């Protein structure tokens, strides 16, 4: 079995990472804004105040610009498993494809079909009917996140399926185990609420701009207040769930948690320091520099004072027997494929749980055939395989720290913002308002680093413990990869430019300009002039 060109694997990974990270520039905002739109429209329907309808319209327009690219780039994700990860798709499609299909059936269809009515149905639907549509769009986008993260949860901690040697793939056998996998559920809540934070920061930041400019005062003040409170509550929830996820990783992916903490050697409780900063060196398997707070690591990760946390070098050496068993499993599986003998099946079943480590060793076997591994070759193959069994520590360590630092920054900024907003003192704190404005992209950035922590930390596996990444890719010609990468780079750069241009344009125009052409019903004459005055700002530059 020829090894897939490692360059093709790397380029496939690069393409997947770029397209996933790009897709996720838009998703958090969709998740958060739909919820906020539903809240704004609810207030409108209950109180009948026009300003809340204007808020729903205006933020809805910005949501629409964002939603379009979110849908478009989501399509890439759904197809890329097949186009670039054929072995992966074959290996887990029976269990991984199912949540993706359910996502389409249950959530994405509803969200995308009804979003048309949400934008175009204002004059054709009664108030409650339109509100129901907005709620269903919000429900749909968050249910989408649920099913996608159930699928992702399977990659992190495969539950609900077992390997079938007759079909050479993981077969689905327990629906509830798949859906209620602790990893999937914790990550769903963590990720979708991170989206709420992004939505809140977006609304708060743009409102801060209007307040600074002295424009659209009432509109901006109400939007700001709603966003700051919503953002504060959401951020606290994200941090709590993040801690829960760390705890789950400690139980199911010890390599990831050790990489996150830059832990090469098993920790000595209770003194073990939690590293604030370090320079992990993956080549020498040590930290060139580290700075930490003693006594924090053990309770933080293990929620105890006495449990040692396994370090990467110790995990590697403990995996050597798993590599030996894995080699036996792969050899038996290959024989079973050819002969279907009961004997080979029995051997495979015995070593099945270490099969993934056999794949890691197969890479270094002569002609990628584990049957050709001689006792003389074994020790070096064992060492190469276990060295491959841990993730890149530098990337995992730092992406986690950036995400976490941003999370604590959000708590502070939302807390101050909510406080001054509730006391009606925002105008006295222009620095805070400017900071809010400049913080708009930060929650999205934090989710991107969160993705890197979770997925880089999962390496070298696509399905943790079962299928290595280098074996998951499609066996493409490298030219194909250059073609697709160049195309994605070109298109996606053009889109981000267009998106930013339009976002800035409509954010600057503001709600009054945007609504200038909308005919208000007579009852809406109550809209007070000061809110919608101040024309002529459109030429001013963004600051």
């Amino acid at each position, binding site marked *: 079995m020829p090894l897939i060109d490692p360059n093709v694997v790397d380029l496939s990974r690069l393409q997947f990472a770029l397209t996933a990270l790009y897709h996720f520039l838009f998703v958090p905002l969709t998740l958060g804004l739909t919820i906020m739109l539903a809240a704004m429209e609810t207030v409108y329907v209950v109180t009948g105040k026009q300003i809340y309808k204007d808020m729903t319209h205006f933020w809805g327009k910005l949501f629409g*610009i964002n939603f379009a690219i979110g849908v478009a780039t989501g399509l890439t994700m759904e*197809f890329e498993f*097949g*186009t670039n990860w054929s072995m992966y798709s074959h290996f887990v499609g029976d269990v991984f*494809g199912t949540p993706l*299909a359910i996502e389409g059936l249950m959530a994405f269809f509803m969200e995308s*079909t009804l979003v*048309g009515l949400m934008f175009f149905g*204002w004059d054709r639907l009664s108030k409650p009917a339109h509100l129901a549509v907005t709620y269903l769009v919000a429900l749909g986008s968050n249910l989408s996140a649920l099913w996608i993260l159930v699928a992702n949860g399977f990659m992190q901690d495969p539950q609900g399926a077992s390997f079938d040697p007759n079909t050479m793939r993981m077969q689905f056998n327990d629906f509830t185990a798949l859906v209620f996998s602790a990893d999937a559920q914790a990550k769903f809540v963590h990720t979708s609420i991170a989206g709420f934070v992004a939505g809140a920061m977006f609304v708060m930041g743009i409102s801060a701009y209007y307040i600074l400019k002295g424009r659209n005062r009432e509109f901006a003040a109400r939007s700001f207040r709603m966003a700051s409170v919503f953002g504060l509550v959401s951020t606290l929830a994200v941090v709590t769930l993040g801690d829960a996820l760390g705890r789950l990783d400690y139980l199911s992916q010890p390599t990831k948690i050790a990489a996150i903490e830059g832990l090469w050697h098993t920790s000595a409780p209770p003194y073990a320091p939690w590293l604030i900063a370090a320079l992990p060196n993956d080549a020498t398997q040590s930290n060139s520099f580290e700075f930490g707070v003693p006594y924090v690591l053990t309770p933080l990760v293990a929620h105890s004072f006495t449990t040692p946390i396994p370090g990467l070098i110790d995990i590697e050496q403990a995996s050597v027997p798993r590599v030996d068993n894995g080699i036996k499993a792969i050899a038996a599986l290959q024989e079973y494929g050819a002969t279907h003998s009961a004997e080979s099946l029995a051997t495979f079943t015995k070593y099945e749980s270490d099969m993934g480590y056999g794949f890691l060793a197969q890479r270094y076997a002569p002609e990628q055939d584990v049957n050709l591994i001689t006792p003389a070759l074994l020790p070096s193959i064992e060492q190469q395989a276990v060295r491959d069994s841990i993730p890149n520590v530098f990337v995992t360590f730092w992406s986690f720290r950036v995400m976490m630092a941003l999370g604590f920054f959000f708590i502070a900024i939302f807390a101050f913002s909510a406080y001054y907003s509730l006391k009606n003192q925002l105008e006295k704190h222009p620095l805070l308002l400017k900071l809010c404005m400049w913080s708009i992209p930060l929650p999205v950035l934090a989710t991107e680093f969160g993705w890197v922590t979770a997925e880089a930390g999962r390496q070298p596996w696509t399905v943790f413990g079962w299928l290595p990444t280098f074996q998951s890719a499609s066996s493409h010609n490298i030219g194909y990869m250059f073609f697709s990468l160049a195309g994605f780079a070109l298109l996606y750069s053009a889109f981000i430019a267009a998106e930013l241009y339009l976002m800035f344009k409509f954010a600057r125009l503001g709600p009054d300009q945007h609504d200038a052409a909308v005919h208000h019903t007579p009852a809406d004459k109550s809209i007070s002039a000061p809110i919608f005055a101040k024309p002529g700002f459109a030429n001013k530059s963004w600051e």
Partner: protein
Amino acid sequence: MEIYIALKVLWAVLLGVLLTGLAVMVGMDMGVGVLLRLVGKTDGERRTMLNIIGPHWDGNQVWFILGGGAIFAAFPTLYATSFSVFYVVMILLLFSMIIRPVAFEYRSKVDAKKWRDTWDWAFLVSGALPMIVYGAAFGNVLEGVGFHFSWTGQYYQDESFLSYLLNPFAVMCGVMSLSLAVYQGGAMLMLRGEEPIYSRARTYARLGAIVAAVIFAVGGVWISHMNGYVFTAPVDPGMAATPLGGPAVAAKIGAWHNNFHAYPVLWLAPAIGFIGMIFGALALQLHMKIVGWWLGVLSWIGTISTVGISMFPFLMPSSTTPAESLTVWNSTGSAYNLGWMTFFAVVFVPAILSYTSWCYYVMRGKVKVETVVNDPHSY
């Protein structure tokens, strides 16, 4: 075992339903995209055309996403192999599908001729290309594709994409699919558009239906002279789903007509296709717009079921290693998985059909140029 076979057949049928739903709904939007510059002469007319499908394109596009997800889950090996084997065209298809939503959202938000012209061309290319690729993929599959598997189930490709993509039969299938899209899109423009959009759309829609009918007839004859695939050893439909170690398969001229010869009642499928296309052209001629639109749906049903029936149980034959051809029997998910998928399909497909119909009902009626141009919410 019998239940597993029944589930396999059920999902083969549902695959056909999905591919048809996708062709009708996405094809309609693509058709409008292709006709944008041909039917719409002024910016107002073009915007009106976009707003006719404006409230629906997003939902329609999900047929595509659902198609991807459902094939992934119900036919994992088919998904893994076909998407990779057709890499270059799949990527082109993806690019088109990515450009379209952005084009909808952005085109009318900036009032500059150059900006809008650029997006109009984007609509044309991103509408025509996917439909050609969609049809050509059917053509390629009918002809057989060169691939084989390693013992782990990893596919390996045996021929370059140029040799299978650029052949006359596949291109012809691509043109047929584009023609049906133009027919469906044109019929929609007639339903919701006023003069002059109405008359121009009518011309192109009729042309689309007639071209499709001619190609459908030519294709039927052509197929009887080209290789089909047959099992040459007994096959167990309840077999474990793996393309490895299956019964022998051979390529045989005219074999794609075998199922029709065995069960003559199946000739109904191509007949339905012809009825859809020919009577569709006639209905549009007689200004029966709604009937015309539905006959477009019938055309797709007839065409796709004809392809499905002629190949059954093959899904993607391998021209280089026929015994590793992907069939309904060897490339589905497990019985457990298909069971859950069936449950979710039974619950949610009716829901999808009802809220989609409701959306069309709410947004019914003619779209006027003046309304579109004066409405800040329109595309």
